[in-house]
């Protein structure tokens, strides 16, 4: 702080803060300097980056990737609102108007924070001279798009924004313009067929089985099968107490979102599919008992084991301790109320089966003890059973639910919707992108699941994937029968462990994509589109301002929230507002079966 310039004075005077001689001249010359020099700088930077260099923003609900077009990797990747914090948006929106309004406001301020940080902290560039490409998920809600556009145009004053479909961009990064892209992100897994760079939006299929569901599942499994050792209360205790006697059930406070995230990204792996008979025997258990329990786990602890099964619990857990001593240290508050639940034995069976088949090692993780247990020294230890590491991702491949298809099923559902003459092409150019496929082994497993779902089923009717629920059905409906001829053609472009080459033409595509990571493909594609000077319809700021002004004239009395919902409608591109063309006649399909959920029920999601 320089002494003279900062001397406070009347609010209306320039003098105190302008260190130059007489205030009057300072005012003029100062403003001249102000006017000219930064302008000069911006023009210079213009030439530095080139006017055509775009900024590519891949905004996820949790993780954002940002950078300049023409570069092979994003400049910066960051958590949109801190690690372990709530995602920017979720699949739900508040229904009450007041809450909705608050949610919108919160979203806008958080988006504003993120977007400002993109320019000011990550890219260190002036937003006013940069055109933006937003990598847009096809199901990104329009209100979020509007918020993004509003912040970019009004607050940051960027010259133009284009929105480009993330699936298409990912496909570009794989060097193709035709393919079936499945984006397995945090909130959703979305499959979208693209032909000749035209996304076939009506055939889009989505499922909520994705990263956040996996996180929930890991949490539920750890609460049931993990082991926690609180920090030692004193140094001497190290020698006195064997580790096993300190083991307790995992307190829920230990499993913060950040811890779960770390487990997911550093410990988890996707094991290869198990023999069909074993998996299928257990899968009804998982879908009936485990899924509810994990939904519930957001609210309260999942059920503890009934006493009878505790021996199994100890067998499952890392330490060969007796479960009685293991629980002896648990304070009453942490032990969930004992409740008998149906299906727990299934869970136990599942755990036992996975334990038997898993070769993954148990891991010890240092975690912060829960605040209520701060007595000890240092950090506690969380023991993650090996099978949890290896089998947590099973939840993504558990199909059979009408509303929540497995990741493989969502691909097949989409493929069923596609015109028949495109199916072969698309089936042999599947591209898997998004953060969740970064799990080692995910893509090979997906390939296996695809093949299994389409393969001719064994005669044991009800245990087939398409009819996963345990309920008996009149006849197993063979949902993917029309796809069966495609079986040899299935190929995942970015499969790091492609199946052995066959002579079938399409399957040779497997593993032929460039080795970009699945998570960054959409961004890389955006960068490519920017470098090739394509990348979606540009919305220029003038257009936006016009629309904004028009709206204000139309309805000056409009309340803020209304305005947010309706203002830029005509400006932002949005495929869902396209009147759907009649399109090709539907593909001939097996005779409609009343039991089956028709694919059109899912169309509501896309619309």
């Amino acid at each position, binding site marked *: 702080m*320089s002494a003279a*310039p900062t001397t406070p004075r*009347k*609010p*209306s*005077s320039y003098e105190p*803060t302008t260190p130059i001689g007489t205030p*009057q001249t300072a005012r003029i010359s100062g*403003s001249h300097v102000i006017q000219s020099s*930064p302008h000069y700088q911006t023009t*210079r*930077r213009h030439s530095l980056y080139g006017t055509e260099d775009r900024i590519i923003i891949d905004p996820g609900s949790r993780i954002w990737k940002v950078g300049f077009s023409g*570069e*092979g*990797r994003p*400049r910066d*990747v960051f958590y949109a609102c801190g690690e372990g914090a709530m995602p920017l948006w979720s699949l739900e929106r508040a229904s009450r108007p007041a809450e909705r309004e608050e949610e919108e406001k919160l979203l806008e*301020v958080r988006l*504003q*924070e993120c977007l400002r940080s993109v320019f000011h902290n990550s890219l*260190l*560039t002036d937003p006013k001279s940069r055109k933006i490409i937003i990598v847009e998920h096809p199901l990104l809600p329009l209100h979020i798009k509007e918020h993004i556009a509003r912040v970019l145009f009004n*607050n940051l004053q960027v010259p133009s924004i284009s929105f*480009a479909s993330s699936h298409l961009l990912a496909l*570009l990064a794989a*060097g193709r*313009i035709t393919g079936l892209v499945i984006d397995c992100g945090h909130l959703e897994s979305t499959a979208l067929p693209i032909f000749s*760079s035209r*996304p076939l939006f009506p055939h889009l299929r989505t499922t909520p089985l994705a990263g956040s569901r996996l996180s929930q599942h890991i949490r539920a499994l750890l609460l049931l099968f993990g082991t926690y050792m609180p920090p030692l209360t004193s140094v001497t205790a190290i020698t006195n107490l064997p580790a096993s006697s300190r083991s307790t059930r995992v307190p829920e406070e230990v499993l913060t979102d950040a811890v779960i995230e770390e487990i997911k*990204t*550093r*410990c988890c*792996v*996707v094991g290869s599919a198990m023999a069909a008979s074993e998996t299928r025997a257990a899968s009804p258990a998982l879908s009936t008992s485990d899924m509810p329990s994990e939904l519930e786990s957001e609210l309260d602890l999942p059920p503890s084991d009934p006493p009878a099964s505790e021996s199994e619990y100890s067998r499952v857990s890392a330490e060969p301790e007796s479960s009685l001593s293991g629980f002896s240290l648990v304070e009453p508050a942490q032990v969930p109320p004992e409740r008998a639940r149906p299906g727990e034995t299934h869970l136990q069976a599942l755990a036992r089966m996975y334990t038997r088949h898993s*070769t*993954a*090692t148990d*891991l010890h993780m240092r975690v912060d003890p829960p605040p209520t247990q701060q007595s000890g020294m240092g950090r506690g230890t969380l023991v993650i059973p090996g099978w949890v*590491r290896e089998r947590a991702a099973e939840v993504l491949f558990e199909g059979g639910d009408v509303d929540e298809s497995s990741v493989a099923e969502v691909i097949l559902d989409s493929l069923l919707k596609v015109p028949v003459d495109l199916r*072969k*092409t698309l089936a042999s150019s599947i591209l898997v992108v998004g953060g969740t496929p970064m799990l*080692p082994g995910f893509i*090979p497993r997906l390939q296996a699941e695809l093949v299994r779902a389409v393969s001719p089923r064994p005669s044991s009717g009800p245990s087939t994937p398409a009819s996963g629920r345990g309920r008996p059905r009149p006849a197993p409906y063979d949902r993917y029968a029309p796809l069966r001829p495609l079986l040899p053609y299935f190929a995942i472009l970015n*499969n*790091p462990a492609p199946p052995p080459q066959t002579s079938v*033409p399409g399957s040779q595509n497997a*593993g*032929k994509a*460039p*080795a*970009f*990571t699945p*998570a960054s493909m959409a*961004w890389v594609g955006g960068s*490519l589109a920017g470098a*090739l*000077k*394509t990348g979606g*319809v540009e919305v220029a700021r003038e257009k936006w301002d016009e629309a904004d002004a028009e709206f204000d004239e139309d309805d000056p009395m409009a309340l803020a929230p209304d305005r947010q919902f309706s203002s830029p409608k005509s400006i932002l591109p949005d*495929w869902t507002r396209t009147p759907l063309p009649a399109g090709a006649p539907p593909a001939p399909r097996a005779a409609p079966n009343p039991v089956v959920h028709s694919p059109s029920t899912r169309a509501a999601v896309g619309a």
Partner: protein
Amino acid sequence: MSASIEYYCPCLAESPHPPPPHLASSSYSFHPLHNLYFCEECDAVRCNRCVLMEVSGYFCPNCLFEVPSASVRAEKNRCARNCFNCPICRNTLSVVASDPEAGDGRMSPVVSTTLGEPPFFLFCNNCRWDSAEIGITFEKPTGLAAQLQKFEDSAPEALEFEHLKEHFEPYLRASSSALPATAAHSHHHVNPITAAASSALARDVPGVGKYNPLSRSRVGRDKNAGKQEIPDYKSRVEIGTLGALGAGGGNSDVEFMRRLEDMSEVAKLEQRWVNSWTASLRSSDLKPLRIPLQVKKSKRCPACRHILIKPEQKSQSVRYKIKLVAANYLPAIHVSLPHAIAAMELMKRSSTLNKSLSSTVDDPSVSGLIPGKTYAFHLAFTNPLYDPIQVRLKKVQPVPVPSADADPEKARRVPFQVSLPTAAFGIAAFAEAWEYEDEEDMFGQDDDDLDMDGHGMATKDGRGKTRAVGVVERRANTTVVSGEVIITKEARGNIRFNMLVSYTYRSDDAEPAEENEDGTPSRSHAVNKAPEMKNFSFYTVVDLGAVVRREGSRSELES
């Protein structure tokens, strides 16, 4: 924890009224005074969320080298000299020479570092990581980034990216339409876009050619298929091959993860997520990171584009050429709770006597607010201006009718009632520190104020209140006023309320102002003028701290 106050920045919003303070989204509209700016042209407060920022210079935070903007892009916003971060702990790495030949180097470490033994490497003083582990060594201890540059230039993702670009360029040139093929999905708009889009729809789909039943399957590669369409892209490095080689992504990763014994062997997500190229998961394969540059930013008013902040160019300098901060214009307000301070004092005194009590000093139940009680709070206003100002306070109740006589219905909805001094009070002018003593009571308005205070107190007394609401202290350019808050039984959460502060100051915006600016700004000058009073008001949010629940106070406080 304790009471605080934040100032409202409207951020160009249409409505001048601040959002209700209890909403989570509102906290983004309120800022501590020291984070705010003041635009003189607009006569308005500006904050970091609404000002326009411009880069006024790049520099490396480690070596403080001012990077010319020409090299900023080439270096991808990173320091192009010797500055690296540890990939494990993000500490700054230092360049270390190899151990010299046995014996002689040990004697004179200075010599050995200045001369250095040829293979230099980077070393982390914090976690003892060194770059020799991953095979990065340097021939000379300077210009390390330049030595690494050649590896970065030949990074596989950069090469693959160029390859992709070459692959698509002819295809894009072929599609002559102004509208790129990638935009075809958003073709339904009114105005010119629609026109362009419909023409785009009408034209041949590039890569498909004319519809031809024989060639409809691209991958089938029938005789005619390949003619018109874009040839299949041949990756430089196919992920399948990479996976088979065990370089990452393939079964080797799965096996590695299965056999993992120690989590720290796997790199954190944050350590790998910038990599767009499939690479090893192991933390032992992480590369040193070039330190990202930082910028000096100048900030402009979003409305009138006048500069609010302009730093000096030099990276070493922490001064500003222009600095219009709100603290120079708005009175600073400090909130305190006398009962909490008293309690603290008491605690401190008793804790010195009795050590065992010391752990309870920060116990919220002592200094916190208890439902059903009435508390006084003090607002200390400090005037930054060279002229005395008159301040008037007004509370803003989110719920309509902020009537003092709480009827039960209202009381149920409003968990607390705040009384503020209603009369205006004066704050003496800011003066240089050495002038204080003499001039403290030179101002005429003091008497008036005191009268008003008396009046205010009288009304309170009339209603049988014991606490005073009014000016409690005056010293130098600070005036302390007292308000009180009545907390109902149902109250919970934080006691926060919006307060409108209006102050009247002597303006010299008009004609005489310009002469005024010639002279040294001084009290006497201002007094001589026929004062033209101007008014400025701003909103604040006062947070008096959390209401303590008698049972389960802890969790209550955290939420």
